[in-house]
């Protein structure tokens, strides 16, 4: 059972009783969550608890079996992902998904709606900001993992997104790169964007997020502020098992 | 009665298709490779039977295992030398590679044996057995039973034997199989050898039913695809049922319209199944 209480804040995304089954596995089971506009919301849970599936359902990569996903007041459940994206929702993937045979610059320019010239100028500026200009003509597949993460972040900046979903952005990233990623997240918040984030780095999650949803076996087992979640017995059980 | 005859003819035709499709299917199941050269492996099997029976006077039925073993060896070599290099590469590479093989083998056959149509006469298998005015073509009935035997044997082998289990494990999850200590490379070699052997068996049987020529493989490859897609790529029972369905729908279409249109049935089925239900009629849904 979800215990989502209506919040007073402005809600940009609301998933209601969403379920998804793959063959014999109930990947997401009647889960609900809410994301407040301009905030950083976190999703945590053990591996295989359905976080990534939830992200895929929200971004239109999977179609939910039941339930509604209300984004900016519209039900987007089952809408193809490019439509969802064009409604202002961007995402990164657990393993980076850059276009390997394209250069960094091309990776960034291909996704915008702007004209080519304008997009390129913007991309160069973004790269320069993070000191990555020299990589702009490099093939994405030649970058280090951390660099790829960063470029994936920058690629998100190329599209006009109001809500950004980050799927385990800090996994396998060294501290230097981690700092750069965090800077970018800050920059987005300052720009007024909303962020939905999942990661296993508990310290970062607790520090960043204003509100956290805890998944286990496809259901939301707890939610609240970091402090509330930290105290919740069920969360401990979910992580350390019985 | 005619309609029963047509259905029977269709089922027997399906039996002829089965062996061919099963080998194709086995290779696809394990390696996710569509072997466009399968028809030529069959053709070589047919030639082995032809030469054994005409030059050495070997009973064509006896020549079947010989052809199977010979082609298994060739299959192993082909896998070792060529196909292994494109496993896990994009589909286009294996498609092209096996197409190149197909062209090459056909070219060699044309050079060695010319495009003459040849045929194996095995007197006991000409004509038919008649039951209640329904004719059962002897050669096709025998082919049908051998197909059931071989397919059934293959099924048992995959289900029961350790090596068969390795093959199944590899086909379902190559990485996991490897982690479990299965030598996936060896499994692939064996699979290609087995698939080639099955192609050879079908070739030997087809030599007794149709004429043998270097271009005979191309007649069957399209139908082979239709069957395994219809049955669900990688599914054994599916391929068997798919072959029967194709055989019967071809003969029925030919009976009610004409043989020309029947020729299109395989491709129409293939396209429709791919578009409507890519997992095939009997296959499991894809991930």
């Amino acid at each position: 059972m979800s215990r989502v209480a209506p919040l007073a804040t402005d809600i940009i995304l609301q998933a209601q009783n969403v379920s998804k089954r793959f063959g014999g596995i109930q990947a997401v089971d009647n889960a609900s969550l809410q994301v407040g506009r301009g905030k950083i919301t976190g999703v945590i849970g053990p591996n295989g608890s359905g976080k990534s599936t939830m992200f895929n359902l929200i971004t239109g990569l999977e179609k939910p079996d039941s339930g509604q996903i209300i984004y900016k007041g519209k039900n987007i459940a089952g809408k193809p992902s490019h439509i969802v994206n064009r409604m202002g929702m961007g995402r990164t993937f657990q393993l980076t998904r850059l276009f390997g045979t394209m250069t960094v610059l091309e990776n960034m320019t291909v996704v915008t709606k702007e004209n080519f010239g304008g997009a390129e100028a913007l991309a160069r500026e973004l790269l320069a900001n993070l000191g990555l200009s020299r990589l702009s003509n490099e093939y994405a597949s030649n970058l280090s993992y951390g660099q790829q993460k960063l470029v994936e972040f920058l690629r998100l900046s190329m599209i006009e997104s109001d809500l950004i979903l980050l799927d385990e952005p800090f996994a396998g990233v060294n501290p230097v790169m981690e700092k750069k990623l965090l800077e970018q997240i800050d920059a987005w918040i300052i720009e007024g964007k909303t962020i939905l984030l999942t990661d296993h780095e508990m310290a970062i999650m607790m520090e960043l997020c204003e509100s956290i949803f805890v998944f286990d076996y496809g259901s939301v087992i707890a939610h609240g502020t970091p402090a509330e979640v930290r105290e919740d017995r069920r969360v401990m059980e979910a992580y350390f098992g019985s | 009665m005619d309609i029963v005859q047509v259905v029977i003819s269709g089922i027997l035709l399906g039996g002829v298709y089965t062996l061919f499709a099963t080998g194709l299917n086995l290779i696809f199941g394990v390696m996710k490779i569509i072997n466009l050269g399968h028809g030529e492996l069959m053709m070589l099997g047919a030639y082995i039977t032809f030469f054994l029976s005409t030059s050495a006077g070997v009973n064509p039925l006896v020549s079947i295992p010989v052809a199977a073993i010979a082609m298994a060896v060739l299959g192993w070599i082909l896998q070792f030398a060529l196909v292994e290099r494109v496993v896990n590469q994009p589909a286009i590479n294996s498609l092209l590679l096996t197409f190149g093989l197909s062209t090459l083998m056909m070219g060699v056959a044309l050079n060695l044996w010319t495009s003459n149509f040849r045929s194996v006469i095995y007197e006991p298998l000409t004509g038919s057995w008649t039951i209640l005015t329904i004719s059962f073509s002897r050669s096709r009935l025998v082919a049908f039973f051998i197909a059931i035997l071989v397919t059934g044997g293959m099924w048992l082998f995959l289900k029961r034997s350790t090596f068969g289990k390795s093959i199944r494990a590899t086909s379902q999850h190559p990485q996991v199989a490897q982690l479990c200590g299965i030598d996936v490379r060896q499994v692939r070699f064996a699979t290609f050898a087995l698939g080639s052997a099955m192609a050879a068996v079908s070739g030997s049987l087809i030599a007794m039913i149709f004429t043998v020529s270097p271009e005979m493989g191309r007649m069957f490859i399209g139908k082979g695809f239709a069957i395994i897609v219809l049955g669900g790529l990688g599914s054994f029972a599916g391929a068997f049922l798919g072959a029967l369905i194709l055989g019967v729908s071809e003969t029925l279409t030919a009976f009610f319209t004409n043989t020309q249109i029947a020729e299109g049935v395989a491709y129409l089925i293939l396209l429709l199944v791919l578009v409507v239900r890519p997992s095939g009629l009997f296959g499991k849904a894809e991930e």
Partner: protein
Amino acid sequence: MATRTPPVTDQAPNDTNVDAYTPPGWEKYIGWAYLVGLIISVIFLLRLPIAADAYTVTLTLTVLLVITLSTSWNWLSGFGGYTSFAHAGFFGIGSYIGALLLHYEKMHWIPVMIVAGIGCGIIGFLVGLPTLRLRGPYFAIAMLAFTELCRVIALAWDDVTLGGNGVFLPILRLQLPEENMSFWEEAQMTFHNNQNYYAMLVLATIACIWSYVLGTSRWGLKLLAIRDDEVAAQAMGIKTTYVKVTTFAGSAVFPGIAGAIYARHVGYIDPVTVFAIIWSIRAITTSIFGGRGTIIGPILGAVVLTLVSEKVWEQDPNLYQIVYGGIIILVVLFMPGGLMALLQQRNIFPRSRRI
């Protein structure tokens, strides 16, 4: 998967040590170099029928035909990564539309070519819409089936297509040179006697120019994105279905027109010849041999492979099939990136979308 393999630098050891690649200075002049090259080639090829014998002209026509096929194949299958075996189907449909219109309607040939192209474009759209959802081998099989189905239809639909009898096209009689022809009259005669050659030249030229436009545009980048990671492309807002289907339909126009020109040139077609799978294979092998996913790869591949296979075939037609099969195998095994990748790895050509 990467078809145009990025130069091997292995995994970057850490976050900061990746060498930045800077293209050579002349990279930005490539577009101009193409323009000059194109103008020179076109002038040369325009004059060819005057300077060379008819056999050379026909051979060149074949090269231009293969350039058209491989270049147009490259758009969806090289840039977009969807291996299509449908080119033979469109080639055959184009041949038939062209041949039947000329046979029954006795229309002027130029509108006939355009109708054949548009027809194939529409069919391409209708076929692509349901089938381009299929991936990898499934799409390839579907397109093989499509081509075979086209052949069966052409054979079975006797009333319209004349079935296995094939279609005779009006005989093109040569104008013979006369005494004291003015330059203009002679040019007209040359054009008249080589209409199909010039038509193929125009078509191939358009295909090449379009290839450059596509390859350097964002549309081309979108195709590359689809090839590299279709899910991510869609999640980043690229309308993948629209891009794929439109590209497929557009690339169907070219084999369609090429088929119609070919039919008119040969003067007799039958279903088995024009729907032969070898037309697709030719487009695919030349494209891969040259370098799929590049602009000049398919053109280079078409020129080299067509001339080489002509030579081999001249030497010994019996060995031709063996050699052709062997070439395909060798290309797949040893140069999957094609000639262009070899040249780029040796830094003879820069890594550039303009190549």
